[in-house]
């Protein structure tokens, strides 16, 4: 099932691109970009949901709520849930698109590994999943050579007799850039979250780098292209804060309209429960539109 629906079509598309460009390294790059473009709507949704959460968390009402119920976690959670419901924001909305993308990313990886069949047994298995309109004798086995790399082996660039893992280094650097670009601004007051984020920022690049160092160069190439494409997608949406990566750069992400607008309740009515005008769950956009005239300046 998994193979038929995901790995087989991916592998065949990858092979077709290879036949077209006659270079497996270029095919991996193009195929990764293609998959990233196809999954772009999911990525965009994830970015927007994440932005909505950030906007909400920066709002005075939310901050007041945090302050007011700082000693009553249960009440705080209850109020937060009410606010989420009112604004139609889900704390997990940014994770759902990521969940949908997960099988695609795993399938992409597996199709690359499968196409790089290097033993006779792997070649037999690869030949079996090739669609009838592709002539396997013309394409198999795939030439794994790309620049100085053997895509089927861990990559090392020999300089003065020393094998330098260039791709693994690029994977680490591009993962650092990607995590920093994607990372939302940390709440300075929340040391636990900051510590968690910092530890993730350290762990992920190292983990990916170790994988790239040990696994085949084809996989490392995919990691690099995937990371850079993600950064490019963020940049295209104007969500990249380059100063986080290059401190000397002054640019901030393009100021966009907040995805949701949260009305700050007047002090006297703060104790009152939030009045939800519509019984059905409003979308974030609808809610924002409805509330905008009441916004405090």
């Amino acid at each position: 099932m998994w193979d038929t629906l995901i790995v087989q079509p991916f592998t065949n598309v990858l092979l077709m691109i290879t036949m077209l460009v006659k270079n497996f390294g270029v095919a991996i790059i193009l195929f990764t970009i293609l998959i990233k473009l196809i999954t772009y709507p999911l990525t965009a949704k994830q970015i927007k949901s994440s932005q909505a959460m950030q906007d909400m968390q920066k709002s005075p009402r939310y901050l007041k709520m945090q302050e007011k119920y700082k000693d009553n976690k249960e009440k705080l959670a209850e109020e937060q849930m009410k606010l989420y419901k009112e604004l139609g924001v889900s704390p997990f909305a940014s994770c759902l698109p990521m969940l949908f993308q997960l099988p695609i990313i795993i399938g992409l990886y597996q199709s690359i590994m499968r196409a790089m069949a290097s033993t006779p047994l792997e070649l037999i298995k690869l030949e079996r999943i090739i669609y009838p309109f592709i002539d396997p004798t013309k394409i198999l086995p795939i030439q794994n050579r790309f620049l100085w790399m053997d895509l089927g082996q861990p990559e090392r660039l020999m300089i003065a007799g020393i094998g330098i893992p260039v791709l693994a280094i690029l994977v680490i650097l591009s993962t650092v850039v990607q995590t920093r670009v994607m990372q939302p601004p940390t709440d300075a007051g929340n040391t636990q979250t900051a510590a968690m984020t910092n530890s993730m920022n350290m762990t992920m690049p190292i983990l990916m780098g170790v994988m790239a160092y040990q696994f085949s160069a084809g996989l490392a190439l995919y990691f690099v292209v995937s990371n850079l494409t993600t950064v490019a997608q963020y940049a295209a949406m104007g969500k990249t804060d380059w100063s986080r990566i290059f401190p000397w750069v002054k640019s901030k992400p393009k100021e966009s309209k907040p995805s949701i607008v949260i009305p700050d309740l007047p002090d006297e009515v703060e104790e009152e429960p939030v009045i939800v005008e519509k019984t059905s769950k409003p979308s974030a956009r609808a809610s924002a539109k409805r509330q905008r005239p009441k916004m405090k300046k």
Partner: protein
Amino acid sequence: MNKKYLRSLLIVLLAGLLLAGCAMGPRAESTPGISADKNQIIVSYMNYVYKVDPITGKADWRYPEKSNIKQVFYAPALIDGESIYVGDFANDFLKINVTGTPTVDWTFSEAKGWYQGKAAKDGDLIIAPNSDRNVYAIDGNNNLVWTHRDQFAYISEPLVVDDMVIVSSQDHKVVFLKKADGTTIREVALNGAVIASPVYDPATDSIFVGTLGSEFMRIDRKSGEILWRYDDDGTLGSVWAKPILVDGQIIFNDKTGKIVSLSPETGMENWQLNAGGSMPAGLAFIEGQGFVAALEDGTITLYGMNQQAVWSHIISGNVYNTPVVTETMILIGAIKGDNLVYAYNFQGQPVWTFKPEK
């Protein structure tokens, strides 16, 4: 719990899932490499090389004693008296003394790829194909004599005839090299990748080889001329295994299970039969008995030279390697089955099975 903390936790969980998903993907997957002489059977599989007793089917020893996750063996060992030569997937080629406890005499570590094919030996020269696109020639003292470099991985056993080394190439060709220095004498272009080793026929001074391009041919050794090409009117499947030369016939099989006998001289078809299933493994000849065919699904059949099945058995597992015939038995390597090696006598009775201890 703090939402940001929860979200970070979820991201770590997703990353873990992603990495686990990647790790579950196909890795280097292969089949047991079996080689044998009258005194010993050597099986290369995963992290060990085993010496198996031909009488009992029990492992006398395994090398290394403790597994190294990076050291994986699939290439059949070259048995040379008290030594074996075997390469691994950690880019090392070893000479191991097998009298008593195995000891490594030397290790050749200049390759940058995997050893998948069996090495060949001619006098003091050991010729080892490697997936780093090189063929290495090493002398008995571990000195590199020459290297032949090409564009595709070399994975099949080289053939040495007089002053020539003949190697199948996945780059749709057969390469003829000078044994003395590894320089190219000629390359014969073919229609598909050549996975299996060629067979040499001294009577016609020709080599015979099949390709994944669904063809089988005779190539003159001295001139490199293709003397005839057989494709069964376009119905032949891809050829993955080495042919056998028996009683003035060249016999081979394609992956669809078609077994064909041709005249080596003319390429005219003598007969053909269908073994009845997918058959990547090649045929093994038994003197005075016929030939053994092993289907992928584990069906093992001995055919007489009159093409009639003498006996047939089904073993547990999938067979991708050509059965190995010793003086007294047939050895079949299988994967995904109850055992790794199955031994039958020529009458088709099971002798023993071998399953490595964990």
